[in-house]
C-alpha cells in the first residue's frame, strides 16, 4: 500500500541557526495516526511545516500519496492542518470557516452547504454555526479547526499540539474526539505533541524526536517497554535510570548494588549499560526470595487517585515507584523481568532531555 505521507531522508535547517531537522525518514500509512513527540525545539513542528509545504526541504524527498511534493505550494498539497492557535478566521462564522476550503475550490453552494452542515453536526456544533471564533469556547474553536481541516477530504491531516491550549479536563475528552474523527475519516495523521499521555493513548505509532533527529519510531507499547536509549526512556513515561556494568549474564552492578536481571539482553560481562526500571515495575514489600530487595523509607508520597507515585529512599539512593496499594512499607523489590538494559549512558545527551 502506498504511504499517504512518505518522508525520505528529509533535511532542513533554518538559515543562520542550528535548528531544523536532519535525515528524517518516516512513512505514514493511510488511516494511521503517528504521534511525533519530543522536547520543544526538537524539530517536530518543522516536520509539519515541511509536509504542509510552508517550508521546502534542503535535501531529501517528501511524497504525498506516492507523488513527490517538491515545489508544490501548500494550496495544492491537499493536506489539512490544525494549528496550535487554531488559526480560525476571526471575521468568519464557524460555518464560513468550515466552508472556506470548499469555497476556494469552487464547490457549488448547495453541495457546500450540505457538506458543511454534515460536518457541523459531526463535531456537535450545529447550534453554534453562526458564531464567530471569539464567541466560541476553546474546545468549540478546536472542533471548528478540525472540521475545517477535514471537510475537503485531505490526503493527510497534520495536528500541531492541538490540545495544548485547552484545560486539562477538556483535553482528555478531545483526545477521544480527535481519534474518533480520524478513524471515521480513515485519514493519515501526523500528531505533534510534547504530552506523552496524549501520544501513548492516541497513536498507532510514536516517533520520538530530539535535536532534529528521529530517535525511535514504534508502537506506544514498543517505545514504552523497549526504548532504544535513555533519552527515549526518560521522555516517554517515567523511568528509573542508573548507569550499570555487567557482572555476569544475570547480574548488573548499579549504584544501588547488584541487580539480578532476566536473560536475553545481549550485553556481555564487563560491558557498560544503562539500567531502566519503570516505576510500576517496582513492587512494594519484601521479595519472597529476597532478590533485588531494598530496605529504607518512603520519601515523597504523592496520591494520584487510583494510584500513588513515591520515591523510596535507600541508603544508596532513591527509587521511584508507582503502586495502587495504599498501606505503608519499609522495603521494595524489583523483579528481574522489570529490569531493562539500554545502551550506556551518554551524560551529554541527557543534559537537555531531563
Amino acid at each position, binding site marked *: 500500500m502506498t504511504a499517504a505521507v512518505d518522508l525520505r531522508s528529509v533535511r532542513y535547517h533554518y538559515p543562520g541557526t542550528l535548528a531544523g531537522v536532519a535525515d528524517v525518514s518516516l512513512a505514514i500509512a493511510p488511516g494511521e495516526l503517528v504521534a511525533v513527540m519530543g522536547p520543544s525545539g526538537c524539530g517536530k513542528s518543522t516536520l509539519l511545516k515541511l509536509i504542509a509545504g510552508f517550508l521546502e526541504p534542503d535535501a531529501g524527498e517528501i511524497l504525498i500519496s506516492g507523488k513527490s511534493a517538491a515545489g508544490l505550494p501548500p*494550496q495544492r498539497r491537499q493536506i489539512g*492542518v490544525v*494549528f496550535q*492557535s487554531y488559526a480560525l478566521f*476571526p471575521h468568519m462564522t464557524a460555518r464560513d470557516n468550515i466552508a*472556506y476550503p470548499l469555497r476556494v475550490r469552487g464547490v457549488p453552494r448547495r453541495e457546500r452547504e450540505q457538506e458543511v452542515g454534515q460536518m457541523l453536526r459531526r463535531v456537535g456544533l450545529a447550534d453554534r454555526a453562526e458564531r*464567530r471564533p*471569539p464567541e466560541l469556547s476553546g474546545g468549540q474553536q478546536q472542533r471548528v479547526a478540525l472540521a475545517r*481541516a477535514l471537510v475537503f477530504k485531505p490526503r493527510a491531516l497534520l495536528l500541531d499540539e492541538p490540545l495544548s491550549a485547552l484545560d486539562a479536563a477538556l483535553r482528555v475528552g478531545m483526545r477521544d474526539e480527535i481519534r474518533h474523527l480520524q478513524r471515521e475519516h480513515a485519514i493519515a495523521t501526523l500528531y505533534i505533541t510534547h504530552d506523552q499521555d496524549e501520544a501513548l493513548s492516541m497513536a498507532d505509532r510514536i516517533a520520538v524526536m530530539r535535536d532534529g533527529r528521529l530517535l525511535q519510531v514504534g508502537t506506544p507499547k514498543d517505545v514504552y517497554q523497549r526504548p532504544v536509549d535513555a533519552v527515549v526512556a526518560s521522555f516517554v513515561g517515567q523511568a528509573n535510570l542508573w548507569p550499570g556494568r555487567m557482572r555476569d549474564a544475570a547480574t548488573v552492578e548499579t549504584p544501588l548494588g547488584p541487580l539480578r536481571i532476566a536473560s536475553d539482553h545481549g550485553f556481555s560481562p564487563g560491558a557498560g549499560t544503562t539500567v531502566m526500571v519503570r516505576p510500576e515495575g517496582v513492587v512494594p514489600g519484601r521479595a519472597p526470595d529476597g532478590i533485588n530487595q531494598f530496605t529504607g523509607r518512603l520519601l515523597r508520597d504523592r496520591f494520584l487517585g487510583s494510584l500513588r507515585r513515591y520515591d523510596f529512599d535507600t541508603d544508596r539512593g532513591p527509587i521511584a515507584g508507582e503502586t495502587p496499594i495504599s498501606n505503608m512499607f519499609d522495603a521494595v523489590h524489583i523483579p528481574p523481568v522489570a529490569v531493562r538494559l539500554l545502551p550506556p549512558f551518554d551524560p551529554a545527551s541527557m543534559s537537555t532531555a531531563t
Partner: protein
Amino acid sequence: MASGEGALAIVTACYLLYLGVPIILLLIGSVGATWYNTLLPQGFTGDWYLQVIADGSFRRAFWTSLQVCSLTCALAALVGVPLAYVLNSAADRRLRAATRVAYLLPVAVPPLVLGFGFVLVFSSDALPFLGSTWVLVGGHLALTLPYLISALVGDMRHLALAELEQAAASLGANFAQRFLHIVLPSLRHSLLSGLIIVAALSIGEFQLSNLVAGFLSRPYPVVLLQAFYGATGFACAATVILLALALIAAAAGALIAGSAPAARGISG
C-alpha cells in the same frame, strides 16, 4: 489611595480645561459681535459665519481641503495596504528593520523640510507641477502614510496574520484568494482607524501645504492664516469651520468603522 485618585482627577480636569478653553473661546468668539480689550466678546451675531461662507477664497479652500483629504485617504489605502503587507511578510529581519526606519522617516523629518524638498523638485523644468493639487496630495501622502502603515503592521502582528494566511493556503486558497478573503477583511479595523488619522492630519496640515500650494489650490488651513489679519470674530468662525471639517472627517471614518461587523472585541 483616595488622595492619590483625587490628585489625579484634579490634574485631569486641569488638562481638559487647558484643552477645552481655547475651543470654547473660539466658539464664543465666532458668535460675538465685537471683541476689543474685553475678557469676553459683546453682543451676539451669526454674521461672521455668513461672511466666511460668502468668501470665495474660503469656499474654494474648503472644497480643496476635502478633495485633497479624500484623494490622500484613497491613495494611502491603495499604497499602504500592499506596502504594509510586504513589510510584514519580509522574511529577512534586517530588511524589515531597515524598511521600518525608511517608512517612519517622514514622521521624524519636519514637514517644512519635506516642503522645501517638494519646492525644489517640482519647480524644476523637468517637473513644473508646483501649485497643482496633485503635488499637495503627494505631500500629504508622504506625511500621513507612516501612521497608516504603523497601524496596519501592528494589527498584522496582533492578528498573527501570517499564520492565518498559512492556514488559508493549507485549505487551498491561492495568493489572490488569501489577500481578498483573509488579509483585507482582517485589516478592515486598522485600515479605517488608520485612515481617520490620515484624514485628520491631511485636513489640518499647514507647514507643507503653505509651501507647495498654488494660489488656486490653497487648502483651508493656509487660507485660514489670512483670517487672523482681519476681524477676530471672522477668524474664530473660520477656525470653527475647520474644526467641524476635521470632526466630520473623523466621525465619518468612525461611523464606517463602527458599522463593520464587530469580529474582535467580543471575548469568548
